[in-house]
């Protein structure tokens, strides 16, 4: 969307909403503003004639000034040298508004818009060209037993968060234990506020649908005393060829074991379009203060729209077993651990020239100590190692609060990150401070300053540094009408 169109859209929306807002007896607006300053040096591919390649200290081919090169037998060899300095100051303002009391009981209006852009000139941040986005904008009518929602909205079920421009209808039984919902309309890109036809979703200028998608779905949920169960369905159709881009069904449930502190959860998805079981998990959680224990077996399978070619490349799922324990040793001291081991099934391909791992693990331990009512300290260790990349590091934080108004925090950590596919083991140490100020119940300001020091242990000249100083500020401001609920002081019988 161009800036001119964005301005027009904002003006139109303001013109439409202004009289409605004036008539509403209750309204609530939340403004979230975030801005940060970042800079880094990326890579830049370069090449030299094959004849100029020399043998490096390790015996491999390098450029005369020490960059490792890769040659494929052609006239030129390629290598990556540090790119130019990229700088950016992205800023985003989100406005979330709700209005009610419009003269019709149960009717309310909701709108959420985002204005963003690069406050500097670098543009080195994803999405700065999307000046204005309408995240949600709908009218909601709740009649108690049933409800309607019309406009741009987001479904937030287990199958994912999908936006669409259309209509959703909900029905509930008298006991409110059973709920059914259907929805449909023009779909937006997955996890995007724009349709799949938007240029913002095609930064590499690759394949892209020429028509928007039709989105239909539904859900049914039953809530019982011993447990709950839900079923969901969604379908995304290519509006030009009526080919199915996504069609999935999922079921979720939980069960509470009577007279125990044990709860079970299960979740499974089936990809009707690809004919494959999607992600699923089966978990148990034991809640017995001061200890909480959970364990899960699960499968993760990525999802690709069928308008792309990626599903034909047979992406593999992985299976995992994970566990987590939280132990409140004393009221002010708690220890948390979680770990997971995962592995991929056979890939069905021979790679005789290389050796890849097909399994990995991740784990973390954290300790949190409430030193006093105002001071909290925490420290943790985390590590993961698997196909493609890994990381291992320590982190800690010290937070000081003055009542509920001001929070000051100092934090730091270290990180090693080996990359399997690149000889690029980088070590990073960072430290910083953040401040959070609640001026009142409705206005909150924040700032964060971090310094990153990186040591890239790379055996050639391409060991560029990601040293950087990062600074961000944020503001959250809630505006409400008098009809909104406010904290009340303790009162007495007159």
């Amino acid at each position, binding site marked *: 969307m161009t800036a001119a169109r964005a301005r027009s859209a904002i003006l139109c929306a303001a013109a439409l909403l202004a009289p409605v807002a004036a008539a509403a007896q209750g309204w609530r607006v939340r403004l979230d503003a975030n801005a940060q300053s970042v800079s880094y040096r990326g890579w830049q591919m370069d090449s030299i004639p094959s004849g100029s390649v020399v043998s490096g200290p390790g015996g491999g081919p390098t450029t005369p000034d020490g960059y490792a090169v890769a040659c494929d037998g052609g006239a030129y060899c390629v290598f990556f040298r540090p790119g130019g300095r990229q700088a950016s100051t992205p800023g985003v303002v989100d406005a979330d508004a*709700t209005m009610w009391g419009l003269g019709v009981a149960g009717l309310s209006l909701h709108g*959420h818009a985002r204005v963003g852009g690069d406050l500097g000139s670098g543009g080195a941040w994803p999405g700065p060209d999307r000046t204005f986005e309408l995240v949600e904008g709908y009218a909601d009518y709740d009649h108690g037993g049933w409800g309607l929602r019309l406009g741009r909205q987001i479904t937030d*079920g287990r199958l994912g968060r999908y936006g669409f421009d259309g209509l959703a209808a909900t029905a509930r039984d008298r006991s409110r234990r059973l709920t059914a919902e259907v929805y449909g309309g023009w779909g937006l890109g997955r996890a*995007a506020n724009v349709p799949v036809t938007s240029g913002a979703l095609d930064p590499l200028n690759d394949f892209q649908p020429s028509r928007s998608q039709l989105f239909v779905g539904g859900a049914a949920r039953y809530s019982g005393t011993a447990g709950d169960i839900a079923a969901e369905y969604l379908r995304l159709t290519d509006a030009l060829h009526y080919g199915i881009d996504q069609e999935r069904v999922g079921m979720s449930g939980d069960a509470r074991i009577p007279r125990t502190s044990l709860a079970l959860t299960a979740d499974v998805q089936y990809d009707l379009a690809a004919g*494959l079981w999607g992600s699923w998990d089966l978990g148990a959680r034991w809640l017995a203060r001061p200890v909480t224990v959970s364990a899960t077996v699960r499968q993760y399978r990525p999802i690709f729209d069928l308008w792309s070619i990626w*599903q034909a*490349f*047979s992406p593999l799922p992985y299976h995992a077993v994970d566990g987590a324990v939280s132990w409140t040793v004393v009221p002010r001291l708690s220890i948390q651990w979680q770990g997971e081991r995962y592995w991929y099934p056979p890939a069905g391909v021979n790679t005789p020239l290389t050796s890849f791992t097909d399994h990995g693990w991740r784990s973390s331990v954290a300790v949190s100590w409430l030193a006093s009512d105002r001071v909290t300290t925490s420290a943790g260790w985390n590590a993961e190692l698997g196909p493609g990349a890994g990381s291992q590091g320590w982190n800690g934080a010290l937070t000081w609060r003055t009542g509920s108004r001001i929070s000051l925090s100092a934090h730091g950590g270290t990180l090693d990150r080996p990359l399997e596919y690149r000889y690029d083991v980088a070590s990073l140490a960072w430290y910083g401070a953040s401040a959070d100020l609640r001026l009142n119940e409705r206005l909150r300001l924040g700032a964060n300053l971090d310094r990153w020091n990186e040591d890239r242990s790379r055996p050639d000249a391409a060991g560029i540094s990601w040293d950087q100083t990062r600074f961000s500020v944020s503001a959250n401001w809630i505006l409400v009408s008098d009809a909104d609920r406010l904290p009340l002081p303790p009162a007495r019988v007159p």
Partner: protein
Amino acid sequence: MRSVLLAALLTLAAGAPLRAQQQADTGRFDHARHAKLFPSCVSCHAGAQDPGLALYPAATVCATCHDGTLRSKVLWTPPAAAPASNLRFAHDAHRAALARQGKDSATCVTCHAQSGARWMTSVRFPVPESCVGCHAPGGAHLTQTDSACTQCHVTLAASRLSATEVAKFPAPPSHRDSAFTLGGGHGRAAKASNTSCALCHAQDFCATCHANAAKVPAILTLAADPRSLALKAPTAKPSSHSDPRFDRKHGALARRSGATCSTCHSQESCTTCHQGRVPDQVRRLATAVPGRPSGAILVRRPPPTHQDPAWKRSHGADAAARPQSCSACHARSQCLECHRPDAGAATGYHPAGFLTRHPAEAYARESSCAECHNTRGFCQDCHRMAGVTAAGPLKPGFHDAQGAFLLSHGQAARQGLETCVSCHAERDCLTCHSATGGRGFDPHGPGFDAAQLRKKNPTMCVACHGTNIPSN
């Protein structure tokens, strides 16, 4: 100006000792030193016998001896009024009642002196045991029946006690029983007869706990009296609330016996947590509008499930199965702080330094990046600017730890295809993996169902096979 201030200070300083002396002289009369002078009590305290006369002697009576010559002067003055108390007592009426009962043997010293003490050596105000000794022999003062209390005491509202004196009220032993304070015992007692309650308590005291005080008849019959707040009500939560599963069960309990909840909780107590859809049971509670009790003021804290270190990643199944449970505490907008495309205002989901460690997370995803980020618009865009996307025909070089990566990347690609496509466009792969324009390398692997995919969307097939799509 300075001299005026100095004079004022001197005046105040000089006056203070005088005032202290006077106060000292209005203190207790030393009865023992005057034991030989006064043969009877009523010679000074005539009011005890005749209500028309003063209970205390006038200062001039003292001055007959303490005239400055015979004895040193004293500045003693009688109290302006009898000490404030909540006693239902008058000397003349008491004497008359005793006379009617034929108990003329009772004298002043029966109540005002220790038994067996010498004349005027142990004069004191009566202690409760003195009263109980006659009125309810065999029992302690605070263990008397409710009806017995009103024999001697008036209600708090009728008394002239200060809040400081009210704060010193002793608690009867029955009040120390948790069954009485929190188990409903005091409520049953008050319903039966709250006359004795009113001796120490008023509406204000009850309202410190009872959010529904304005609807409880036993409370409404009490007077409103802020002095009652000098007594502190026990505020320990009921034992049922200590059950680790109480957070989960309290909804069902509220549906069954919401009236019990309304004793301590107002709507505002519940909306501390129930910030989403407010349950009907909550709507039935009293509202803490100005001028009415606030009810128990709760602290919003996460339920035990949220203590699970894996909760941030694993709450999806719970939320999908019973969203109404989430909506009890969370408004939808709170969920959307993270669960919305490229969450702008969300902070804290990713740990500090995540940008530099995200490759490890992205290769084998602990959670799905695509839930919140459009991998084309978000990942590719950033990688393109960092220079790590393929900008032309594929060449070796980037995956330099594996010299033959380009020729043997199949396993890595199938394991981490989402990561591959954050840098690579479809055309990069079609250079080799195309049946029409490429080298014809078959990309299909385990689980590939050609017929299924062709039936659902042949667009994908056309990209590689053109119009000549194989039948299987």
